[in-house]
């Protein structure tokens, strides 16, 4: 998990390119003749990036789960995933479709390509990937300068937070993705939450797990985190924070006895977009209290 | 074999009619079974005999009246029906490997509220198993029994149930001659000593006429004739229904045995 720390302060991967030859994150070349006027963007994170770059005017359709910024909801909404509505995309006649690599099947992409639509694939597994995605989307939408600025901005913010963080990986943190009554799920290594924890120099108590996983309640008690971050929905009549604070048997956990439980925004913390900075800031505030 | 016309009636069937899929399977059949009567229904395949029995045991919808000692059977309590009317079906199919004994024990179901002594219950079951010759096979799974043994198991259940009137659909099917004879002897004794009655469907006309006291001859859903042996079990009646010379056929069958008597 800690290896990602270098990536954060790492390079801007300079990618020299001709005016219209762009390579997407699946390694395919995209032959863009002009700056697209009509784009369909399926991943929420890509929508957020394009809005941040100011390229929102060219977006004509967004995927089902794109809920930020609010204006995105006014665009045409398209079913995604297994039930990707290919014919609707074709009928919108976009210049480019931006798609997540792991979010669609190859058959579906092939149909789009066969219909003569350019398909750009993004695939961000970590913060470094996110920069690449921003770069790529900047190139596609003709906002390269804005993209570079955004990347620089994000890097600055992250570096500043990392510098400010005085921890020494002594304090521990536990991310809760699904609440107790439905089985505890948490984030392990190779997740953005892990990267954020590393950046802020706190130790994720489940950094030994790959990705998302269901874990035993007793392991949380045993590993005794100093901080708890929950990203679950506000459930029923109590807020998730209150619910965690009131849990039976958890009284002795450090984070509970010191009331160090925080409700994080799951979209912010899991989407490879510009809002990762906000997530990091919020988390910093929670951990260091400033 | 002298049916006492004055003894009170046990089962009364009035205008029984069964229709299914637009066909009239049983058409306005009326009869009456009195205490100590051995009432036999004969008739060709498809005449509606099993249908009547299914109606009596309330497993199919019917119109008309079925009265047990004057009471409408459809309105009686289920375990009252079972204590009074016992039915042996034409087919038996079992899926799980119950033992013979477990099946026979079920015959006692309707008495479970009487809280009889355990020992006494056991004796009744023992007796039923002995009567049907199944005592040695009591622990065997019904799934491994031969055709006749299955039939005897369900007969034993019926004896354990000890109803006032036995309703038997082809009880001698699958039975060998020894148990045929034994069944009828047991039933005969039991009826006369306890003022009970039996209603049986029998295809073997010799057996029927040997055993029965009252007869109902059916054909195509209708009662052709009804009465004592001399009125029903006579070639004049039977030949028409069966479209053959019944008497001479039975005589042929018997011929071989004459010399051994």
């Amino acid at each position, binding site marked *: 998990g800690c290896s990602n720390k270098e990536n954060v302060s790492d390079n801007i991967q300079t990618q020299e390119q001709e005016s219209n030859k762009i390579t997407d994150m699946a390694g395919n070349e995209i032959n863009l003749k002009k700056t697209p006027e009509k784009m369909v963007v399926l991943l929420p994170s890509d929508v957020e990036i394009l809005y941040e770059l100011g390229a929102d005017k060219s977006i004509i359709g967004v995927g089902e789960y794109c*809920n930020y910024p609010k204006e995105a909801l006014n665009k045409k909404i398209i079913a995604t995933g297994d039930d990707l509505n290919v014919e609707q995309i074709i009928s919108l006649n976009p210049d480019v479709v931006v798609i997540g690599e792991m979010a669609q099947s190859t058959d579906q992409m092939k149909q789009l390509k066969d219909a003569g639509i350019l398909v750009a694939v993004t695939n961000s597994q970590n913060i470094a990937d996110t920069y690449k995605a921003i770069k790529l989307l900047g190139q596609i939408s003709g906002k390269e300068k804005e993209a570079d600025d955004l990347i620089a901005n994000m890097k600055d913010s992250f570096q500043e937070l990392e510098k400010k963080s005085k921890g020494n990986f002594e304090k521990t943190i536990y991310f809760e993705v699904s*609440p*107790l*009554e*439905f*089985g*505890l799920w948490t984030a392990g290594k190779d997740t953005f939450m892990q990267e954020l924890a590393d950046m802020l120099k706190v130790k994720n108590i*489940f950094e*030994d*797990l790959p990705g998302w*996983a*269901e*874990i*035993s*309640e*007793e*392991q949380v*008690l*045993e590993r*005794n985190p100093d901080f708890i971050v929950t990203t*679950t*929905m506000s*459930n*029923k009549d109590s807020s998730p924070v209150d619910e965690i604070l009131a849990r*039976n*048997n958890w009284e*002795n956990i450090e984070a509970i006895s010191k009331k160090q439980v925080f409700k994080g925004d799951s979209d912010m913390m899991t989407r490879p977009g510009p809002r990762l900075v906000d997530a990091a800031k919020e988390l910093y505030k929670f951990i260091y209290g400033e | 074999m002298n049916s006492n016309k004055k003894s009170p009636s046990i089962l009364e069937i009035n205008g029984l009619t069964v229709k299914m899929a637009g066909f009239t399977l049983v058409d306005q059949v009326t009869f009456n079974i009195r205490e100590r009567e051995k009432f036999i229904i004969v008739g060709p395949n498809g005449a509606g005999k099993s249908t009547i029995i299914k109606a009596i*045991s309330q*497993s199919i919808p019917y119109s008309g009246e079925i009265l047990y000692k004057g009471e409408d059977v459809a309105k009686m*309590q*289920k*375990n009252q*029906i*079972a*204590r009074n009317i*016992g*039915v042996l*079906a034409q087919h*038996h199919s079992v*899926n*799980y*490997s*119950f*033992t013979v004994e*477990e*099946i026979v024990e*079920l*015959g006692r*179901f*309707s008495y*479970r509220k009487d809280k009889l*002594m*355990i*020992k*006494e219950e056991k004796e009744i079951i023992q*007796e039923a198993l002995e009567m049907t010759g199944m005592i040695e096979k009591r622990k065997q799974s019904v799934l491994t029994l031969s055709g006749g043994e299955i039939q005897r198991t*369900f007969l034993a*259940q019926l004896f354990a*149930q*000890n109803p006032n009137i036995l309703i038997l659909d082809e009880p001698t099917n699958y039975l060998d001659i020894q148990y045929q004879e034994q069944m009828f002897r047991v039933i005969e004794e039991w009826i006369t000593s306890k003022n009970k009655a039996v209603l049986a469907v029998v295809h073997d006309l010799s057996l029927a006429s040997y055993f029965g006291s009252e007869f109902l001859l059916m054909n195509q859903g209708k009662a052709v004739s009804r009465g004592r042996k001399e009125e029903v079990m006579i070639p004049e009646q039977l030949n028409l229904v069966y479209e053959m010379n019944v008497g001479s056929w039975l005589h042929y069958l018997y011929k071989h045995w004459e010399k051994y008597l």
Partner: protein
Amino acid sequence: MQQKNYISSFTENKMKIKAVFLTRFFFISMCLILIMNICVVYGSVDINLWDTGRIVFGAITGKFPSDIPERFIPIVLGVRLPRVLMSGLVGASLSISGAAMQGLLKNPLADGTTIGVSSGASLGAVIAIAFSAKSTLVSGLGTFLMSILFSFASICLILFLAKIIDFTLSTNTVILIGVIYSMFASSITSLITTLADKEIKNIVFWSMGSIAGSTYEEVVLMTVILIICSFVLMRNGVELNAFAIGEENAMHVGVDVRRVKLRIMALVSILIGVSVSISGTIGFVGLVIPHITRIFTGPNHKKLLPISMAIGAGFLMLADMFCRTMFSPIELPIGIITSFIGSILFVFIMIRKNSNKFRG
């Protein structure tokens, strides 16, 4: 068939039966307690037998020895114990329900899952959750009641349809309609989750229940329900035998077929409804445990029901233990383990039994 009197031998006899019954009961209870102990001792956090014992003992006396790390106490008492208890209770409920249904319908394929009751219960739970998600008044009780209600309604609907469609009510018709109904109910559940807004979707998704996170309140509730329902079911053991031999034969020996059927269905739907609403749909247990049990007890429900309850409880406790410990700290979904171990166990036992049979 004469009336005789055997008072002395009667009491003697009854005492003998009681003694046999008590030894068996004692033996089975011991086994279950042993399994329970094993399941409480093993977990993803290592706490040794001695410490576990002292913690449990401490809970009874109210005083914990001071040399045990304090955090162990809630792990054993707060987390493991209720979970182990709950898995035992759910295992028992599903198994006795399965056994009862298989007898009632004379069909070895009957089970909460195949007969559509589990799906019905899930649908009820989802509806309760979806509709109460946004209101303030959301009590777990609503989910319970809806689950029970829906599972009972499902079973009634299925039998009603089976009756209309096939007057003879052949046993496979009922299962066929159950399977079809089950798919129908699942499709409505999916429809609700597909069309509901995102928040509800999440809640529904995560609310499908799990044995993890069981509380003592739930354990108590489940215990009470299990005791009542299983008691009544066992009192209907003879009726179930009659059904298992054949519904027609049951009628002939005097079983009030309709009433008994309704009663058993109601009990089964309460058991399955509550289990589903507390711990989600756990397939397989209700189908396979009765078959495994039948190998030892035969099809007689007087033995089958209690023993399959015990085996089901032990099986699910152990399966849950494997889920917790096998890839610790990761937990496996319980369905994987029950299906995996259960199917292998089933085939193994069946083959063993049959090779015996052919050897003689």
